[in-house]
């Protein structure tokens, strides 16, 4: 069973900074912040330098807001862009609003980063695992989660991913977070990028 993928702690701070930045530009419902607590056991020794690195990534993201959103990252190949790309590559989950398969702006950025990586690594097998929150009917949610996975697949292909991609719809069967409230639902409406 796949739940929230583990993110190395050294990227947590940068993830957090960028997520905050993105949240400022969109509905907070669309931008669940991954819980740091679930990742604490993934690598304690690196956490000191990781915090530092993350802080840098975050501040650069802030300083280059427009570039971030117009899809310019990954083209320049400068040090700072590479850093952001790495940060985005470590985001393996994109989130959705209720009963929607529309990819958010941050989802676009995450998928573009993965597409860029995959275009350079053409033999990767990619699974896009779609999920829905528990509201509404069970089988409709499977179809909705397929729509989400296919929307993500389309973006990966449009952005140049050259990979064998499979879409797997799980509906509401495998929640990332247990619970029956808005905060749990926000984290469960998602596509996980697995490769």
């Amino acid at each position: 069973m796949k739940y929230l993928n583990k993110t190395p702690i050294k990227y947590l701070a940068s993830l957090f900074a960028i997520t905050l930045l993105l949240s400022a530009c969109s509905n907070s419902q669309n931008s669940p912040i991954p819980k740091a607590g679930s990742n604490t056991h993934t690598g304690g020794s690196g956490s000191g330098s990781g915090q530092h690195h993350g802080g840098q990534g975050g501040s650069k993201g802030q300083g280059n807001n427009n570039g971030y959103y117009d899809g310019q990252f990954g083209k320049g190949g400068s040090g700072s862009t590479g850093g952001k790309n790495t940060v985005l590559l470590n985001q393996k989950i994109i989130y959705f609003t209720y009963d929607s398969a529309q990819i958010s702006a941050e989802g676009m950025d995450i998928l573009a980063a993965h597409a860029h990586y995959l275009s350079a690594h053409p033999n990767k097998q990619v699974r896009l695992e779609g999920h829905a929150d528990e509201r509404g009917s069970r089988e409709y949610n499977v179809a909705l989660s397929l729509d989400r996975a296919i929307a993500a697949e389309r973006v990966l292909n449009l952005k140049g991913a050259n990979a064998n991609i499979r879409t797997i719809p799980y509906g509401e069967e495998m929640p990332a977070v247990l619970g029956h409230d808005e905060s749990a639902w926000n984290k469960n409406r998602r596509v996980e990028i697995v490769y």
Partner: protein
Amino acid sequence: MKKHLLRFILLITTLLISSNSYAVLEIEITGHTNTGIKIMIAPFSGSKIIEADLRRSGRFILVDPQKANQTLSLGGNLQSAALQASGAEYLIVGQQSNGLSIEILDIADGHRMAGYRIPVLSNSRRIAHKAADSIFEKLTRIRGAFDTRIAYVTASGDVKRPSYRLIVADSDGHNPKTILSSRKPILSPTWSPNAENLAYVSYESDEPAIYIQNLRSGSKRKISSRVGMNNAPAWSPDGSRIAMSLSINGKPNIFVQSVNGGSLTPITNSSAIDTEPAWTSDGHSIIFTSNRSGKPQLYRVSASGGKASRVTFGGSYNSDASVVGNKIALVRQRGSAFNIAIKDLGTGDDRVLSNGRLDESPSLAPNGTMVIYGSHAQGRGVLAVASDNGTAKQILYSQSGDVRDPAWSPYLR
């Protein structure tokens, strides 16, 4: 909510091997009717099962046989004055002896309305369910559906890595038997019209596929494992075909496939989500969920395909039809809650039957008088059974995990 509960909890202690104990369901009656046919059932072996059946139909008021102030036996003398004073309209007397014999007596004039003899069956509870079916049909003129079964899914064990089980039980939750165990999700069980097979979706091969499993032999075969989605199987009333939702063109659409694995017929061709097909009883049409208008609503299409017409208009979310005759049970969003409603296409009656937050997966009994659905209670998934008139309700729950995705069987042969 709690104070409305009748203190009527039955712990099921049917013959279960210990490894099957997770499958035990407890039953809680949460609603009862104060209108209906007043009936007294004399005590005999199996009479409590008959009482419980009639009670959950929402059409009977059970009168305590103590109120008759006499011994009530099959063939015995009855004092009609005391019986009439009890308020009951009908009396059931019975006796088990190499099967069950029962009689229905009209208390007003004491005449014997009907008598039935039910032979011995290996599942002894079925004898009482058959008796309840006979009584129900005689007094309501509707065929009884107590001697039927339910299929449902449980998820138990480690919440992060649950064990899924597909279980078949009697319609009142007794005699549960696991027919499939898996570490991967199982969903959408659907019965063959002869009640001998189930089709369902299982992720056991890592990706969703539709299987058919024979309940007697346990043997199963995969009938659809196409790329993307294999979703929402529904068996045609003639038993020859299965409707399902597939993503062959990248969008979930309804297809019909022959049970023997032959040809695949496209039924819908929309760029929206089309899923949750349900056959009408005559097999001529399929009612399905589509969000082609923006939000999920029910539509109807010929079982050979063509143009679909919209069935539901009220509300922002109507989905997951279960169809018996003119009745459609469905999921409806009301405010932030999802509830079960029954819409009658014949009379136009439209009634919400449930009041949970997250009710789903309605499945009508084959006579349309009751609906079983998935609900939540105390933070876990439970099954609920409601009478179609909304008066009687009971909850079936497991101490060891979630119970969900119920499917009521057709009539047993």
